[in-house]
């Protein structure tokens, strides 16, 4: 579904990604792991169009998307979340999630001003979809609260909600478990699993090896900007390169 081939990305002479290639197949729950600074987040930013790679290509469903604007890539039904709590803090939860909803045609200014029939329908559909997602994530109690008032764990849920609202086919999660306590980690992984079984292809960037190894069907390991291993959790666990990089870290 998603193919990353030969990506090279450097910033002011510093090489962040060096000849990275891997693939995400439809229906995967893929984990991208690696130590800090390995270039995982940069990879996500390149895939989603936030950075343009110096070399290499990104293909989604065999379509070349390298260097496209992020909003165009997202409209192809790829969603992503961010490493740190990234929300519209002063907006309500339902407004946050509404922003994630994609409509087939953009809401135009003229129709917004004059509140045409089709505009009203669109807005209604947006609201319905947002309420759907809120119900799915069990956020009804907080729907009209300002996002900044929520505890960190719930904020993360909201950002996932915003990503899900667009009904993506591919969901990329950038370190979704950071800062969560183990009970919350379980919850989040359960939700991800649930979505995965319903047909969503997921790519998780994570540090938390146990969660990743336990749930993903394929793993890609990165260090210093390149891939050092790719395969099933068992294969990765036995891979000598990986063991060398993660000396001392139990998996």
């Amino acid at each position: 579904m998603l193919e990353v081939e030969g990506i090279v990305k450097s910033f002011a002479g510093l090489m962040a990604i060096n000849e990275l290639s891997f693939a995400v197949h439809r229906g995967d729950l893929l984990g991208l792991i690696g130590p800090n600074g390995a270039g995982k987040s940069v990879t996500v930013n390149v895939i989603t169009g936030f950075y343009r790679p110096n070399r290499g290509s990104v293909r989604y469903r065999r379509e070349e998307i390298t260097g496209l604007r992020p909003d165009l890539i997202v409209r192809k039904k790829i969603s992503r979340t961010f490493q740190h709590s990234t929300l519209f803090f002063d907006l309500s939860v339902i407004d946050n999630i509404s922003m994630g909803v994609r409509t087939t045609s953009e809401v135009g200014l003229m129709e917004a001003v004059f509140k045409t029939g089709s505009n009203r329908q669109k807005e209604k559909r947006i609201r319905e979809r947002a309420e759907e997602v809120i119900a799915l994530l069990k956020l009804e109690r907080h729907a009209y609260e300002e996002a900044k008032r929520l505890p960190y764990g719930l904020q993360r849920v909201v950002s996932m909600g915003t990503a899900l609202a667009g009904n993506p086919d591919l969901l990329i999660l950038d370190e979704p478990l950071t800062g969560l306590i183990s009970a919350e980690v379980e919850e989040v992984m359960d939700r991800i699993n649930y979505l995965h079984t319903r047909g969503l292809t997921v790519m998780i960037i994570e540090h938390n090896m146990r969660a990743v190894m336990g749930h993903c069907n394929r793993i890609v390991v990165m260090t210093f900007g390149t891939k050092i291993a790719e395969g099933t959790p068992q294969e990765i666990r036995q891979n000598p390169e990986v063991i060398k990089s993660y000396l001392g870290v139990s998996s």
Partner: protein
Amino acid sequence: MNNIKTFLVLILLVLLAGLPFLIKGIAPGWWELFSHILTKIFLNVAFGLCLWMMLQAGMLSLGQGAFIAISAYMTGILSVKYQLVTNLWLCYLIGALTASVVSLLLGLITVHLRRIFFLLVTWAFAEMLHPILTSFENPFGGAAGIVNIPPPSGISLFGEPGTGYYFITLLYAVVVTLIIWSVSLSKVGLIYKSIGQNDILTTFCGIHVRRYKLQVFALGCFLTGVGGGILASYLTAVSPETFTFFASLDIIMINLIGGMGFIMGPIIGAVILTGMNEILFAVGYYKMTVYGLMIILVIRFLPGGLISILAVLRTAFRRTGGNQKKGGEVERTVA
């Protein structure tokens, strides 16, 4: 709650519409003063709301005064200098379009960059305008400007021009308020707000941020321009001195003092600022000192503006009140 609000607003409008006749009946000598101040208030409400909409999207324009000037001067040029257009309403429209086009040009250069560039370029543009207007006799009339700008047709519909301008600017303010209010309640308004909060996240929601920023800027400057044209007729003359940096500053003050959280903010701010201008007008340079001090104090102690006081009162009132819907009022804050 919304029905009460709508009702109150309608009452206010009826009151404003009837005010000329009321005052002329009771104390006719006062009408001229009233209409003068209220006309200015209505214009400022519109200018303030346009900037408010831009501020929602995180765009602080320090050059709104310049866009007013562009439209005002265009009106003067078309109607007086070159006598190309006799219909003043058309002049206002062309002036507004000119302001809008200029804003698009500036926007195309700055809007996708860091916010500070937008700030600096709009400021630099506003500063540049003054010497440009002063230096060229054609078409700007140089330091003297353009005089004898005529009123629009229909001005004497209700008696003397003063009352005519009163109703024109009232209508203008109402239309602008309706448009901006309507946008703010829609998904487009939500997009503006989210751009203001976090434009990267907005991009990742599938929104072409640059396009929406250009849109809000162009719309705001167009609506502002209409008022600029009306202002030209109202003052009957335009000169470089009319549109200094303080024109832009006033509009920012309106938003700051009134508050940017709710649409009522700039409306209240416009009333207060216009009132202050009239009082401080006689006080000359003290005005600058007072203004400056006010800005500092408001930001330090009341960053949400006056409307934030009202918001606090409103929540307090609601908590002690009787009828609460289960789960609290579902109120989408008016943008």
